[in-house]
């Protein structure tokens, strides 16, 4: 399975049209075939980063399925739709991603992904993108799986990793890892943002301390799903 992760710099005056294009266009058009599905449609929460930034994640069954999608967009039935979408955004940056070996999300049952735009409460995700030190990519992936991921596996967690990925060969930066983490307790998010990290959580033996052996650069995005996002 491949994930097509796209960061759209949306024209703020067209944000509703942009969202409608995905809800009424992209999602059902993909649903007419078996190659791909829109999984997440999220807004980078205003007040926490770049304005009018939308993050979408589309799953393709495999490389061949993605290749067919590329052809449809380049000169097939999706060319005009994509051209019209470009009028609603300034730019889009894409990354093809593959699941890490320990990612909870390895395959998606396309039949189970909603494609009818059914509404629900929005949910919040913390998307963390890390850039391990040079030569430490594999070490980081292993440590993140064995230490960080397991540290979140307790009952009723504040946050849970739903997907852990790295760029597919040839797409964007090689030394990069991204975690899609659902926030289950918004009150704890407020505390995380508003307080220094407890010294007890920064000492030797903690992830915050020990992970500095493999990386010190990451970026967090707070993403709020739309009320119709297929996954939420």
């Amino acid at each position, binding site marked *: 399975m491949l994930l097509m992760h796209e960061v759209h710099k949306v024209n703020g005056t067209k944000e509703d049209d942009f969202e409608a294009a995905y809800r009424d266009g992209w999602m059902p058009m993909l649903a007419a075939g078996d190659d791909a599905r829109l999984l997440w449609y999220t807004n980078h929460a205003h007040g926490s980063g770049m304005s009018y930034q939308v993050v979408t994640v589309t799953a393709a069954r495999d490389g061949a399925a993605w*290749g067919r999608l*590329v052809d449809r967009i*380049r000169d097939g039935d999706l060319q005009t739709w994509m051209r019209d979408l470009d009028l609603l955004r300034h730019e889009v940056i894409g990354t*093809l991603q593959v699941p890490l070996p320990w990612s909870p999300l390895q395959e998606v049952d396309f039949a189970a992904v909603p494609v009818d735009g059914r509404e629900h409460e929005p949910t919040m995700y913390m998307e963390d993108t890390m850039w391990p030190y040079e030569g430490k990519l594999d070490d980081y992936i292993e440590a993140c799986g064995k230490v960080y991921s397991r540290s979140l596996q307790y009952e009723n967690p504040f946050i849970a990793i739903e997907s852990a990925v790295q760029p597919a060969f*040839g797409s964007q930066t090689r*030394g990069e890892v991204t975690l899609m983490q659902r926030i289950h307790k918004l009150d704890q998010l407020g505390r995380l943002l508003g307080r220094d990290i407890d010294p007890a959580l920064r000492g030797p033996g903690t992830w915050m301390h020990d992970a500095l052996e493999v990386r010190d650069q990451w970026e967090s995005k707070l993403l709020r799903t739309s009320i119709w996002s297929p996954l939420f």
Partner: protein
Amino acid sequence: MLFIHETHRVDGRHEDDFEAAYREGWMPTLAKSDDARLLWYANHAHGSGWSYNVVTVTGVSDATAWGKLGERVLHGDLHEWARQLDGLRHDVKGKILVPVHWSPMQEIDLPGVPTDGVEHETSLFMEDTGWPYSSLDDYIQCWYDIYYEPMQRVPADMQLLDIQACFQTAHGSYQRREAILWQKIRDHDRLVGLLSHDFPPEHRRPGSYMYDALEFRDQWESRLLRTSSWSPLY
């Protein structure tokens, strides 16, 4: 056909080892099957941009072949090679390209690409990457209408550039609104003339490429890339 375009920020202390890894590792390993080949290995010419910047382009027959190759790099027999390569570079940034509809280069006979490292004269390419404010489709078409096609009417020995290919990014692999010209420089002296002189006024008036192309874009980047002496294509 897909073209995997990678820009490597090489550790200057290891540039020879990095090049050897491609010549003696990547190129012959891909040669064991028919669905992928290293096509170009090129150095961003010192004095014209970033230091120790290497551009490689690997051709794969289709997206299935790309997927298989990616699996080998991430988890298979090429994983250790890629890991060791990471020790010779600071980072690498990649994008997957497809030829635009009018590109002179559409398909490459992959089994026919040299894989033995045979040496030859180096050649110099001007790689132009443009970011339009027009629609991407219109930009790609303008490159044919007001750049490529008129240039074909100029005698080859009068041309500065041999436009060998034009690419756009395969959707989802990188920035969408971007296109690339892959141009071999025919005459180095003429290049120096281009670099060292202002454009004459007649080349900046309506009807000239420099003027008319502003309808589609004003941002691009040129990189002068010199192929290695063993680069399969050059």
